[in-house]
């Protein structure tokens, strides 16, 4: 599937297969093409090339009203001139469901989202969270083949957001409804999804389970976008079947993860803050990467404490998770340490691009 506006390519290439009942997120920075992709699935944008199938039905030539979709929007989009019941009933009315059948179905949908007591209210009399619940009932009442969520939680405050995320996820599992969720918030994408597709500049960088996305990022963009970590430039010196040696400005790194760069190639190595350990002595027993660094600043964040470490040869700080160490003694700014990253925890990406 492809989408271009004139010479601007909004979505360059998307090839996604979503299983029935699966919850897949499209995650990426603004302008990455995730919303355009959703709009193409919904039928509000026409793909320049490619096909869209929903349940063995080719839909890319169908108008939105024929695609059997349910949709939730960031701005809720409840019809302001109709009350809650009329809003939820709307889809049934448009699809020609007999009047006698509509009442009970609206009731059931409102029950699902715990809004049964609000049937006669106007949307403006409801809070944001309540409006979004009604919007969910409205999207589900027609029993669509696929549920499309366009950043539905980003207008809510944090507590309400978490509550609704959990509810939508539980309901989605219970009903087994295939769902595509567009968001720029990595936390909610990781929390809710079976799979997350990280998008960048109109392409899917990686689409996999949230754990894999964090533990085994496929590209440096994904590594940088999901969670935190540090990059160090280097050159591949040696590569064998079991390990690679990479020269960097702060020392030689031994890497046991499989990687594709041949000797001589420019690469960037990457590791997560929680995999970088502060050790007292420079003599590292395990293979990996060891280097001296000075503690520049500490960031206490409740459950975790992050430290920004300064290495001599680079301006870019190395981020280290100090949570486990803090029981021993509290390091102070200006302290010198040796940092060790185990060989299994270092990722290698090509130096080109990002």
């Amino acid at each position, binding site marked *: 599937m492809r989408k271009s506006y004139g010479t601007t390519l909004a979505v360059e290439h998307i090839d996604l297969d979503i299983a029935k009942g699966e919850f897949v997120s499209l995650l990426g920075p603004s302008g990455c093409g995730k919303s355009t992709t959703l709009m193409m699935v919904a039928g509000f944008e026409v793909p320049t090339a490619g096909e869209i199938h929903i349940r063995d039905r080719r839909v890319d030539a169908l108008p939105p*009203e024929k695609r059997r979709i*349910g949709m939730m929007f960031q701005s809720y989009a409840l*019809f302001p001139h109709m009350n809650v019941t009329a809003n939820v009933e709307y*889809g049934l009315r*448009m699809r020609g469901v007999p009047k006698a059948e509509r009442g009970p179905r609206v009731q059931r949908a409102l029950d699902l989202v715990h809004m049964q007591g609000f049937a006669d209210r106007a949307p403006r009399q409801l809070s944001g969270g309540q409006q979004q619940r009604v919007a969910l009932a409205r999207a589900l009442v027609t029993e669509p083949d696929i549920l499309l969520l366009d950043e539905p939680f980003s207008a809510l405050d944090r507590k309400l957001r978490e509550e609704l995320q959990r509810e939508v996820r539980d309901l989605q599992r219970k009903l087994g409804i295939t769902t595509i969720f567009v968001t720029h918030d990595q936390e909610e994408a990781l929390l809710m999804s079976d799979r997350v597709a990280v998008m960048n500049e109109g392409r899917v960088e990686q689409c996999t389970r949230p754990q894999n996305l964090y533990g085994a990022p496929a590209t440096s963009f994904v590594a940088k976008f999901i969670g935190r970590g540090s990059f160090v430039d280097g050159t591949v010196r040696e590569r064998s079947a079991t390990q690679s040696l990479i020269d960097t400005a702060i020392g030689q790194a031994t890497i046991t993860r499989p990687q594709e760069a041949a000797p001589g190639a420019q690469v960037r190595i990457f590791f997560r803050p929680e995999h970088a350990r502060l050790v007292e002595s420079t003599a590292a027993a395990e293979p990996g990467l060891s280097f001296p660094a000075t503690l520049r600043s500490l960031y206490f964040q409740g459950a975790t404490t992050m430290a920004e470490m300064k290495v001599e040869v680079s301006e870019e700080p190395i981020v280290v998770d100090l949570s486990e160490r803090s029981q021993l003694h509290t390091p102070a700014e200006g302290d010198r340490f040796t940092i060790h990253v185990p060989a299994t925890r270092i990722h290698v990406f090509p130096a080109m691009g990002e």
Partner: protein
Amino acid sequence: MSESSGKSRWGERVLNGYVFLMTLVLAFPLLVVGLISFDTAEYINFPPSGFSLKWYRSVVENPTFMLSLGNSLIVALASTACALLIGVPASLVIARGRFPGRDLLYALCLSSLTVPWIVYGVSLLFLWAVLGFNLSIMTLIFGHTVIGTPYVLRTSVAVLADMPPVYEHAARSLGASPLRAFWTVTLPLMAVGIRAGAAFAFIVSIVNIPISLFVTTAENITMPVAVFNYMQYNFDPSVAAFSIIQMIIIAFFIVFAVRAARSGGVS
């Protein structure tokens, strides 16, 4: 605290005085017309010298006035309806469409607001002559539709511009065809703008002299033209009485239209 509230009370007083003054400035001419319409004198003069309803009776007994009243209502209602039928769909194209030349099209659609009406009236007269059409109430309705439509278009585009397309998307995603989505969602949400536009279109039609003057005949004469003609030979307060009647009709229709649109807008 007390100083600031004292200040705000003072500010409020100034504002109230200003509002009162403005209201007086705006309403005063109307007040004069009202007073004159009840005068006993044979000529328009101020202040009036007595009270009578005789000028209202003379209006009712004047066949030209009564004919023009009926004509004006027909023309105003018909041209407002036409303006709505043209202006509302056009506003959708202009506010929602994505095509080159859209701004130019919008400017062109509004351009009849910038042409002096009297020039437009003369042009219309020539147009009908060239096309070989006889002047009739239809040609009059056409002329008024052209000046009324930009008002409907302007107010409708303004509401649509403020209304995110997400409501239409929601309706479509729920199974509504474009037409049903428009009818059940977009149109009721546009009611405010449509109502305002319709009120303007009605008023510009019913008070219009410059266009009507050129394209009316003795049979399809409108109220303002009847007044205009009458005043060329007479100078009695019956025109004041007739103006008051015209004003009451306008006020009635505006209020009525607003009510109807409001109750229709909430389903």
